[in-house]
């Protein structure tokens, strides 16, 4: 009974937004998201769910719904570079946590897409903070290959997946070694052996008796081996990155993207040379593990200076619930510019690192992540500098559709703004 009641409430809370319309947002400080400077008093025009134009001199189509953004900021939605968004309602409540499918007996074949639940409250909470897209990855368990992740949108509708099987996710370093028998030697052996099994499968030679992979896993890895699917690899330490770059030379078709990368600055030149993009944790600065001894908040700035393509992501850092930290993290990277000896990003670069750059790294920069013409109309209007702690999103548009900004937390807030009970118990107050 209780479950039914809850379900009914949830449906009401996620009323379907109105369909895409033609919208002109005028007068705001427009941030395109590609690293260029904000445009004062700019206009953003949206039609059929796409950006038509964004700039200082943009014609407003007749019949467009006009939104006055004077005094506000208008940006692409935040593109969370790494997350487990939509995979858990309450992390420690197993029935609601779909992050890891490791005990299924499968590894690379696991596809998180059906587990991304758009009705879970983290979607609504992070949407109301201006996050509109997210890279969603499975967690690993028992294999270095965790499975296939997706790119999701945070729209209040029943179809969260923008791009299914957008990448394969793998664990290297300490976590990978733990899955591969306890040694990094095992990680590399597993990596090679599994890829060889995938090739055997393609050639019809797979036995799948004593193999590391099941047929479905082999199919998924084949796509990685051919370079059709990106391989996102969680790696933190300098040595692990150097060794991975050697593997990359062995398997040149694999499109590697490094995630985490706390010691990236130590091998920044090599990363740039190898053309490996990174989705980096922004603020790691502690030796949490021995593979993170060199962690510093200046990591992202130093890598960027060395020519590495760098986006911000939040691996293993409240990555199912707090993607709304993304703007705060980017703001912190900007603040480093004012710290003697530290290396940060300019504001424009930092915003790009949470919008266009992650989209580009994931191969969808032509469709998502900025306010350039033709991109999906993921647009956020903010009441101030979006990287500043005092600011909030006042309007969120995804695929051209204005989104509801309410969430469960707002309801609790409203109920308890004055905590003392009135004429009836709080349970009647809604």
């Amino acid at each position, binding site marked *: 009974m209780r479950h039914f009641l809850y379900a009914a409430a949830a449906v009401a809370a996620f009323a379907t937004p109105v369909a895409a319309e033609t919208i002109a947002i005028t007068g705001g400080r427009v941030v395109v998201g590609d690293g260029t400077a904000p445009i004062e008093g700019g206009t953003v025009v949206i039609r059929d769910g796409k950006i038509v134009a964004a700039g200082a001199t943009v014609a407003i189509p007749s019949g467009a719904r006009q939104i006055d953004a004077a005094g506000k900021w208008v940006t692409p939605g935040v593109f969370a570079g790494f997350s487990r968004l939509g995979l*858990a*309602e*309450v*992390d*420690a*409540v197993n029935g609601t946590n779909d992050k890891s499918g490791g005990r299924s007996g499968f590894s690379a074949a696991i596809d998180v897409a059906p587990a991304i639940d758009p009705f879970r*409250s*983290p979607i609504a*909470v992070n949407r109301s903070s201006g996050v509109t897209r997210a890279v969603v990855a499975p967690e690993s368990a028992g294999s270095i290959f965790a499975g296939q992740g997706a790119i999701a949108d945070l729209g209040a509708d029943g179809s969260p997946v923008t791009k299914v099987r957008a990448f394969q996710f793998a664990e290297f370093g300490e976590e990978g070694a733990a899955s591969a028998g306890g040694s990094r030697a095992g990680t590399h052996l597993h990596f090679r052996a599994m890829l060889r099994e995938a090739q055997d499968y393609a050639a019809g030679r797979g036995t799948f008796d004593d193999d590391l992979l099941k047929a479905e896993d082999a199919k998924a890895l084949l796509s990685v081996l051919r370079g059709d699917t990106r391989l996102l690899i969680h790696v933190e330490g*300098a040595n692990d990155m150097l060794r991975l770059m050697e593997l990359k030379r062995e398997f040149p078709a694999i499109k590697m993207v490094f995630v985490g990368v706390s*010691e990236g600055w*130590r091998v920044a030149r090599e990363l740039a040379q190898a053309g490996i993009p990174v989705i980096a944790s922004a*603020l*790691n*600065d*502690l*030796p*949490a*593990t*021995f593979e*993170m*001894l*060199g*962690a*510093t*908040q*200046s990591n992202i700035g130093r890598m960027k200076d060395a020519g590495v393509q760098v986006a911000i992501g939040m691996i293993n850092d*409240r990555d*199912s*619930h*707090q993607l*709304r930290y993304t703007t*705060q993290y980017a*703001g*912190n990277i*900007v*603040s*480093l510019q*004012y*710290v*003697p*000896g*530290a290396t940060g990003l300019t504001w424009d670069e930092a915003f790009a690192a949470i919008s266009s750059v992650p989209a580009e790294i994931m191969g969808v920069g032509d469709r998502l992540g900025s306010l350039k013409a033709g991109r999906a109309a993921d647009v956020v209007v903010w009441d101030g500098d979006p*990287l*500043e*702690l*005092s*600011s*909030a999103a006042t309007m969120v548009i995804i695929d051209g559709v204005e989104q509801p900004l309410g969430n469960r*937390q707002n309801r*609790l*807030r409203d109920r*308890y*703004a*004055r*905590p*003392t009970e009135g004429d009836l118990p*709080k349970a009647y107050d809604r």
Partner: protein
Amino acid sequence: MKSNFRWSLLAAPLALAACTNTSEAPQSASAVPAENLRTFDKNPYPSTYKAYPGVATAIRNVTIFDGEGGRIENGVVFFANGKVSGVGGADTAIPEGTKIIDGTGKFVTPGIIDIHSHLGDYPTPSVEAHSDGNEATSPTTPEVWAEHSVWPQDPGFSRALANGGVTALQVLPGSANLMGGRSVVLKNVYARTMQGMKFPDAPYGLKMACGENPKRVYGSKGRMPSTRMGNIAVNRQTWIKAQEYKKRRDSGKDYTRDIGMETLAGVLDGDISIQNHCYRADEMAIVLDMAKEFGYKVSTFHHAVESYKIADLLRDNGVCSAVWADWWGFKMEAYDAIPENAAILHNTGACVVIHSDDENQIQRLNQEAAKAQADGRRMGFNISDADVIKWLTYNPAKALGISDKTGSLKAGKMADVVLWNGNPLSVYARPDKVWIDGALMFDASTPKLRPVSDFELGQPGEGDVK
């Protein structure tokens, strides 16, 4: 109760040493005949912290948040001999021979105080061998002291100083146990020993925990408690024993020392404060009744994600809530957490402390407070910057019983001072300089004034900006 036998067994060998080092009598000593007076050293691991030398310093042309809700534009802060000696407006006289720092465009606050940290007890690197925060072998371990787990080489202390402006912190045992043990307050100054970091004359706290953690840890071992009612039952049984222990101790008759019971009796004496991990509002209300039942006071509910639901009750009981800005959803008892928690508490007149419980967020307590302030503003609660700084300075000092010594910029208090390169409630601000007891312990412009723990010496990134 199995656990109670356990304390007695542990305590027995220590009893002989009870009288050897007498420095302080129990509070109730005057009530007992002198010949029966049993005294023991209440402070057997005393602080050896000494303030480092400083120079008389004045910061002028600076915006001051005094930590008690005051704000002075274009003000002057000066300190000498380790103490704040003056705070005022532009016309404040600065004694001759004082080093002058121009604070134009900058902000001064008291040192940030984190009331909830596990630095030293769960240090980085976070390896199993460093996991010293939970004596998860019995649901009640009031006999353990967090200070005996503190590793003074934790690299986290330096990050809290340099990025967070943290000058003092309470290190607590973890929350596996209903009664986790004694906390310790540290000065955020590296030392070779724990004693060298210990905040002089800070009262002890007792860490207690409600809810999911104790019942999960022990329930999963097939032991009591496995339910919330079990949690309270074990607590009450233990408090009854503590009352009996205190009665015997105060009777002047011979008794066997029990270090766990000494801590609980210290709580009943009012010497040791209760620092109670508790998420849910309904459980906090039960704890408040339990405290009345046994005659102790709760200083602070930690984590307290549902405090907003009973802000009036907490106000009326004079209990602080130490909270995050916006953590939620990681466990069932954190499901109803809302970002407006702090603002609703403040608006209702209850005490707010922003805490970290985290080696990363301890570096950004100012930012967490700023987010909580902004969420309040959006619901129509305008809380001034100066009041928000109080959440990080005076309020935690008060909840720890050290507000007579630190926590605000008042003449005579410890010169624990942070100069920020901008408004600390902005994401773009960082500490420029940090003084502890008037000694310059961090200076962003001076690489030599960036502490490097033994662990990081000779490692990649030694002395880096971090």
